[in-house]
């Protein structure tokens, strides 16, 4: 917590301002990437509340992301609900699903919870492809949805509008998370992570807080999933594979556990480093075209070796050192 509140607020505002100007300078393709980063950041915020602040490891957040995505897709494409209603509705469903999953999660600690949520991630693509749901989910052919136009005849392209929708959602959810973690509830969540026995002795209702935290975290993933469905214009079981859930975990660890600002770096990492790995693999010659996965792994190990506490931790250390040397 080295930067004092004023510079931190300034920094946040500066990042937000830069993000706000971006859509008027960038091409449609870069806006799509920008929207992807914001969507990932929202999902990482949710997972960080759960794993970073409350200490519950989830390897299955892709499942909630999928519920949000399919929820939004089915509501808009099959039932004609406008997207600005569909996404909140779908994320409320996610809150319910996460809250309910939180109850069995109470009985698992640490690695056992990781395995239980892992099962969720493994099962998701198959449940989505299940024949009985074909009428709603489209089976393995998925669901296509229309991309939204900017409302009120605003002079914005669809890409610009989608990006701004993602930016506003991300900003609101960031401030909600910020307020949550500095509040009494936030302190209780951290206390439950670090000293569960002491926290309960102090009168913290562990069961209620942990399940609600799971629900909130799933809600964030649901919003991200809904926005992703909208930005891509398509959902299918392949969109929500095991790799997605694992990439979320990579994102919060690389960004910095229990750091809300760090999720932005985590999102940038999982969005761009696979592309970088693909490009690097080309430079090793034609036969290395099969290697992006391995290069990604090496880059990930390097990142963790250089910044063991994530990008946020490294920045904190740099700030601390400069302050001390003064």
């Amino acid at each position, binding site marked *: 917590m080295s930067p004092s509140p004023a510079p931190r607020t300034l920094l946040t505002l500066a990042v937000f301002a830069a993000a706000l100007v971006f859509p008027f300078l960038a*091409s449609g393709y870069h806006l799509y990437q920008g929207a992807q980063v914001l969507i990932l950041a929202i999902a990482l915020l949710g997972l960080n509340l759960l794993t970073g602040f409350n200490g519950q490891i989830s390897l299955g957040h892709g499942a909630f992301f999928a519920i949000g995505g399919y929820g939004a897709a089915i509501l808009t494409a099959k039932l004609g609900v406008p997207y600005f209603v569909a996404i909140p509705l779908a994320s409320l469903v996610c809150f319910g699903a996460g809250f309910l999953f939180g109850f069995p999660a109470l009985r698992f600690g640490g690695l056992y919870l990781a395995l239980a949520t892992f099962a969720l991630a*493994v099962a998701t693509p198959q449940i989505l492809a299940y024949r009985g749901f074909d009428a709603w989910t489209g089976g393995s052919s998925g669901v296509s949805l229309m991309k939204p136009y900017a409302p009120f005849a605003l002079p914005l392209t669809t890409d610009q509008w989608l990006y701004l929708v993602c930016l506003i959602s991300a900003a609101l959810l960031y401030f909600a998370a910020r307020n949550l973690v500095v509040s009494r509830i936030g302190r209780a969540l951290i206390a439950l992570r670090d000293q569960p026995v002491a926290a309960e002795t102090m009168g913290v209702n562990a069961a209620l807080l942990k399940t609600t935290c799971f629900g909130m975290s799933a809600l964030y993933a649901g919003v991200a999933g809904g926005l992703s469905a909208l930005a891509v*214009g398509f959902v299918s079981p392949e969109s929500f594979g095991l790799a997605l859930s694992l990439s979320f975990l990579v994102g919060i660890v690389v960004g910095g556990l229990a750091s809300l600002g760090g999720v932005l770096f985590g999102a940038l990492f999982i969005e761009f480093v*696979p592309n970088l790995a693909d490009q690097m693999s080309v430079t090793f010659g034609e036969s290395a075209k099969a290697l*992006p*996965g391995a290069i990604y792994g090496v880059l990930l190990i390097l990142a963790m070796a250089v910044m063991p506490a994530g990008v946020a931790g490294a920045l904190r250390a740099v700030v601390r050192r400069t302050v001390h040397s003064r």
Partner: protein
Amino acid sequence: MITRRSFLQSGAAAAAFAASARAARAETPGVTDTEIKIGQTMPYSGPASAYGVIGRTEAAYFKMINEQGGVNGRKINLLSLDDGYSPPKTVEQVRRLVEDEKVAFLFNTLGTAPNLAIRQYLNDNRIPQLFVSTGASVFSDPAHFPWTIGYNPNYQTEARIYGKHILATKPDGKIAVLYQNDGFGKEYLSGLKDALGDKSGMIVKEASYETSEPTVDSQVVTLQGSGADILIIAATPKFAAQAIRKSYDLGWNGVRYLSNVSPSIATVLKPAGLEKSKGLICAYYGKDPTDAKWKDDPGMKEWAAFCDKYLSHAEFLDANAAYAYSAAGTMLQTIKQCGADLSRDNVMKQAANIKDLELPLLLPGMRINTSPTNFSPIRQMQLASFDGQSWQLFGELLMG
């Protein structure tokens, strides 16, 4: 119906003509006097990375063409990007190819879901999505998606060929079907029912499996219990091998049909047991490099020489690589037909105007044909039965 459709087509043709006149004046993105830049996405990473060999083979093929001087003086530059078989990533990479790299068109992008995710975008922007690498029949729909053309014989075509063969040879048979619970399996089932028509009651039992299941033994036992004397195996390699072995071990001596997804002698029949694979029937369209009978075939020799120079022995044996060689050959023919006019309209027009193209790795006599109303380039297949050593083709080329 005829009047309405032909009216729509003539409208589309008029629009295409007007557009091509415009395009001829404007520069086509990705096309210069010395180069034509094209793009694709491939799963080089992720669960489907075994298909990455398709992209590598195609890149090697165009390298060979470029070393031979290119096409009409232009080199072909294929940008092949990794999408990890994840549709959101496919959309991102395709937008990069179109908007940043400015490719002329897309070629052989891989996978049903990835192609579905980009189809609307490409059709909205009138960018050809050529010869997509999937067997799903939804990509052969020129009325709704005139900028998207399929390539692989689709699963329905193949299943219809089996259905017709069963009706011709065993009209009183009882059919059991083992299928994978996904788009592939379901299209198979619907194609089969389609061919059987009002005799679809011949199917006495269906059993599906999930790719996460360790074995399909129990499904095979259930299917045998139905008293069926025909078994159709619509399964991917690992499960196909299990089904072949189990049905033999149960002493089930019905006729067994195997989907063309899993005919490889090296990866399916050997693991199942060559003796246990005797009598299997499969529909074919390409030559299997692992089958010794093509050893002296000129087309196979050409493939071997190509692999020696540009790839390796591993790719020579890989059915996916052989598939890519044919797909790239089809692409080359399309670019050749375009001549000097490489506008997107003309590229699409020529892709839908391939006449009797024969390729080195397709079965003798097989021809690729497309037309403005036929966006399924490969529609012929030939049945083959396994004699314990190799697949023996029999009968004529069949249309599904």
